[in-house]
């Protein structure tokens, strides 16, 4: 059974003056159990809207979403019991209460009581590395610590499916690395995770498959490697000291898509055919140029390529 089945999902927001904003347009996606699925897209692409619908806090305008076979509209209670949610940012906890009190409350919210609740809270505090700070007020925590507490909250019911909406947004690099390590552990425990991010490296490092979403539409769903290969049939060759006439010759080679000057990298030749990169390398070496490197594009470059270079610009 699929953990998540999203079919033709649409969501329209009514804005002032009768204006409508179509946040999701016919999104279909299937996430099998045990998969970590990365949802990539710029701000305003529809990632959070999708997460909110899956989490039952927002109703779809059209289409259906099933979590472990349960419909988010007609079987809301069933879905709520199967899901853990971690929304990004440092909000979401009761700052005047301690980490343990916060987690105890949320464990109660998910129906845990007595010794079982105490055990679960202890176990989670330990797991997210907050056991030593359990008696401190959350208001004094750093953003990374709060986010770890949010992850513990999302796990309190031991859910089969975990939704992480921009979980590392605003974290410093060390906290983000630790957080990713935690998600990596969850991955190995067989949980299904839907994680939104606009950090390409994060998606590539953690996800079994990645979906790109833009302007409310799903652009593609593939493994990070496959997405990488899409444009790395698009390879690239960087070389320093390439004279003008050679650049022109390289541009004329079959399979070469572009030749451009890139600050810090010298001349960058992009190809859309694996054989073309070899031809470029040969031409460079024959011309006596030895400062050459060959690489595949990052997921970010794939992403930018697919959404037309709009990058992280907010869609208005």
């Amino acid at each position, binding site marked *: 059974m699929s953990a998540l089945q999203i079919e033709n999902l649409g*969501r329209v*927001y*009514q804005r002032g003056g009768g204006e409508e904003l179509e946040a999701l347009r016919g999104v279909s996606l299937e996430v099998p159990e045990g998969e970590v699925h990365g949802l990539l897209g710029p701000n305003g692409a529809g990632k959070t809207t999708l997460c*909110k619908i899956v*989490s*039952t*806090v*927002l*109703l779809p305008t059209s289409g259906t979403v099933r979590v472990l076979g349960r419909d988010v509209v007609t079987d809301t*209670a*069933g879905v*709520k*019991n199967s*899901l853990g*949610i971690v*929304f990004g*940012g440092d*909000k*979401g*906890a*009761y*700052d*005047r*209460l301690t980490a343990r*009190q916060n987690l105890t*409350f*949320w464990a*109660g*919210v*998910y*129906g845990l*009581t007595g010794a079982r609740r105490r055990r679960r809270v202890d176990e989670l505090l330990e797991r997210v590395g907050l056991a030593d700070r359990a008696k401190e007020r959350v208001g004094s925590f750093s953003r990374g610590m709060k986010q770890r507490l949010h992850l513990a*909250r999302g796990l309190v*019911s031991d859910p089969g499916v975990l939704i992480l909406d921009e979980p590392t947004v605003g974290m410093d690099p060390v906290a983000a690395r630790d957080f990713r390590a935690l998600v990596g552990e969850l991955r190995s425990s067989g949980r299904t995770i839907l994680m939104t991010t606009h950090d390409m490296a994060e998606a590539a490092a953690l996800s079994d498959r990645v979906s790109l979403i833009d302007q409310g539409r799903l652009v593609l769903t593939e493994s990070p490697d496959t997405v990488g290969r899409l444009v790395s049939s698009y390879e690239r060759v960087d070389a320093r000291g390439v004279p003008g006439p050679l650049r022109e010759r390289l541009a004329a080679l079959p399979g070469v898509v572009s030749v451009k000057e890139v600050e810090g990298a010298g001349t960058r030749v992009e190809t859309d055919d694996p054989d073309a990169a070899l031809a470029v390398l040969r031409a460079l070496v024959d011309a006596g140029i030895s400062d050459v490197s060959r690489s595949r594009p990052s997921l970010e470059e794939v992403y930018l390529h697919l959404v037309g270079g709009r990058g992280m610009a907010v869609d208005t």
Partner: protein
Amino acid sequence: MRPPAPGFGLGFAFQTRRLARSVDSYFALVGAPFFTIVFLSMVLHSDRADLASYTVVAPTLMTLWTAALMFSGEMISEDRENGRLEPLVASPVSFPMLVFGRLCGAMLVSVPAFGLAIGVAGLFFGFWVTIHHPVVFVLAIAATALSTAATATALSAVFIAAPGARIVQNTLSMPVFLLSGVMVPVALFPGWLEGLSRVLYLSWGADLLRDALAPEPVESAALRLAAVVLLGALALAFGSATLVRFLRRARAKGTLTRV
């Protein structure tokens, strides 16, 4: 599937813990001594010492209602502003029962109000209140507090639907104080107005509390207690249904997080 989470007990325990940690929860108490001084001065100035017990009951109930208005709004607004409303709504807990439990916990704030009113009346005016029917008094204050929390649950639904509804807090105090006979017994109202007052649980609660302080036997105490509880239960049923309806509307319109 897990059984539904026990929202009421959880909310009550949670709110009492929060009360212990936040001084601002007790702001509702500030008015109690001042109201006692003003009301008792007026009563004594008019040579109506027989009404002195009224001046102790009124500040207690006023604090109860003020706390209900304050918490019903702040609870929803704070959870919304601090990113907690969505995770709560997404959880399996019964949201109306959680709110009701929290509001019942918040009602504990009014317990010191009675002590403050008694203390001020005794220390400033030498008028020491005697509770002649303590059992009735305790039951009446408990039933009134429960019904206040139930009514506040209905009010909290307004804050789901209209995040800017804080003005409700400011406008609903005085009309309720007057109409429910907290300050002036409803028996002194014109007949039609008294009828209207009897729809409010607070009018039954206020009368019962005053009677519990008087030496005369309390008439039909059980029946009047039942009236307080019944009106509170109706308010809770209405409040729960309204909360559920407004939550669904907010989910449909995407306004759950809109501040």
